[in-house]
C-alpha cells in the first residue's frame, strides 16, 4: 500500500462568466503539509477548491493526485478525499445521529454508535445526538459537519472556510484536529479569511490575486 501522497497543480486556470479568475497556478503539496488558499472575496478560492474535488470541470491546466490527473482516477481519488464546502450537507429534518450514520454509510462504513458518540463529545455536542439539526445553532451545525472529518478515512481534506460560525474553542479544536491529521501523514487544503495556526506546522500559502 502506498503511504505517501501528493497533490499538485500545474498551470491551473479558471474562467467564470468570461472573466479570468486566476491562471498558471502551480503548487505541490506533500503528505503532512497543509495549503492555505488565501485571497480577497471573489478571487476564486471556492472555485479552485471545487476543481480540486472534481466538482467543477478543469478548464485549463491539470491537477495531479499521486502524480496522475484526477480525472483519470476519479474513484480512487474520491476515496482519498473529504470535502467540506460552504454548505454543511446536513439534512435539517433529520437528527444529528441520523445524519452521521448516513455520512458513514455513504463512505461504505457501518455506522458505529460508540464512535459517533465519542466524536460528538469531542465536538462539544454531547447528548445532542437525538436533536434535529434544524434546532441546532449555526456553530453547532458547523461542528456536526466537521465531525465528518473524524469519521472519514480520507487522506486529503479540502475545507472551504471551516472556521465560519465557530467560537474560539471550536476553532482551536478544529486546528488540533487538522494538526493531528497532518501528523499522521494526511494533507489539508483550506481557505479562510482568518489566519489560524495549525499546531507547529507552517502553512504553505497560495495567495490568489485578482487578475
Amino acid at each position, binding site marked *: 500500500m502506498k503511504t505517501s501522497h501528493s497533490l499538485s497543480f500545474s498551470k491551473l486556470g479558471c474562467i467564470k462568466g468570461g472573466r479570468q479568475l486566476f491562471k498558471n497556478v502551480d503548487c505541490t503539496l506533500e503528505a503532512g503539509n497543509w495549503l492555505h488558499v488565501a485571497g480577497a472575496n471573489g478571487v476564486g478560492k471556492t472555485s479552485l477548491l471545487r476543481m480540486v474535488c472534481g*466538482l467543477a470541470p478543469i478548464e485549463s491546466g491539470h491537477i495531479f493526485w499521486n502524480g496522475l490527473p484526477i480525472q483519470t482516477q476519479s*474513484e480512487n481519488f474520491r476515496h482519498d478525499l473529504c470535502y467540506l464546502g460552504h*454548505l454543511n450537507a446536513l439534512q435539517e*429534518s433529520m437528527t444529528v445521529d441520523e445524519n452521521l450514520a448516513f455520512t458513514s*454509510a455513504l463512505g*461504505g462504513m457501518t455506522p458505529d454508535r460508540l464512535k459517533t458518540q465519542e466524536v460528538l463529545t469531542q465536538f462539544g455536542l454531547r447528548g445532542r445526538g437525538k436533536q434535529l439539526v434544524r434546532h441546532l445553532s449555526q456553530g453547532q451545525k458547523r461542528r456536526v459537519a466537521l465531525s465528518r472529518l473524524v469519521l472519514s478515512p480520507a487522506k486529503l481534506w479540502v475545507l472551504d472556510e471551516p472556521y465560519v460560525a465557530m467560537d474560539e474553542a471550536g476553532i482551536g479544536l478544529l486546528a488540533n484536529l487538522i494538526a493531528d491529521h497532518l501528523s499522521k501523514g494526511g494533507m489539508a487544503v483550506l481557505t479562510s479569511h482568518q489566519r489560524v495556526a495549525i499546531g507547529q506546522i507552517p502553512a504553505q500559502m497560495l495567495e490568489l490575486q485578482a487578475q
Partner: protein
Amino acid sequence: MSTSLKPMALGYVLLAVLRREVSLGMRQKGEVLTPLVFFVVIASLFPLGVGPESALLLRMAPGVLWVSALLAAMLSLQRMFATDYADGSLEQMALSTTPLALLVLAKALAHFVLAGLPLVFMAPVLGLQFGLDTRALGILMLSLLLGTPTLSLIGSIGAALTLGVRGAGVLLSLLILPLYIPVLIFGAGAVEADAAGLSIGGHLSLMAALLVLSLFFSPLATAAALRISLE
C-alpha cells in the same frame, strides 16, 4: 480499507440510502399521505367537473384514474433531490466512493415506495367510486404496480435536470409528462382492453419492458444530469 467497494458494500449503501429516504419521508407524516390524498382529491375533481352521469364516469374511469395517479406521483418528484442539493448533501454523494447512479437508483426506488406504492393500494377504492368491477380493479392495481416504478425512474431524470432552476416544479412536469405518455397509454389501455374483452398480455409485457429499460438507463442519465447540475 480497500480502494473499491465490494458488491456487498454497494448493496449496503443502497439500503442505507433507501432507509434514509424512507425515514425522511415518514418523518413528516404528511409525506406518504399527501400524494395519496392528492390522488384522491384530483380523481374526485372529475365527477365534480364532468357531472354525475355514471355511464360516462365508468367509461372515463381508467383514464382519469391513471392520469390522476401520474400527476400525484409527479408532484412529489421535485423534492427528490432538491433538499439534498440545497444543503450540500448532493455534493457529498457525488464525491462519495459509491457510484452516483446507484445512489440515484436508491432514491428513485424510495420515491416509488413513498409515492407510487400507496397509490397502487388506494386505486381500488377510487375505482369503486367510479363503478369499476372487481376484475377491472385488479387490473388497474396490476398496471399501476408495473407502471409507477417507471414513473419514478423517468421522473428522476427530470428532477435532476431541473435542479436549482427557478420554477423547477412546472418545468419538471413539462419535461417528463411527454415521456410518461407510453406508460399512461399502456396502463390505462390495459384496463380498457380488458373491459372490452381483449387480452391484456401485450399491454402488461410492454409495461414490463418499459420498466426494465428505464431501470437500466434512467439512473445513468440521472447521475449525469446531477453532475451537470452540481458544476
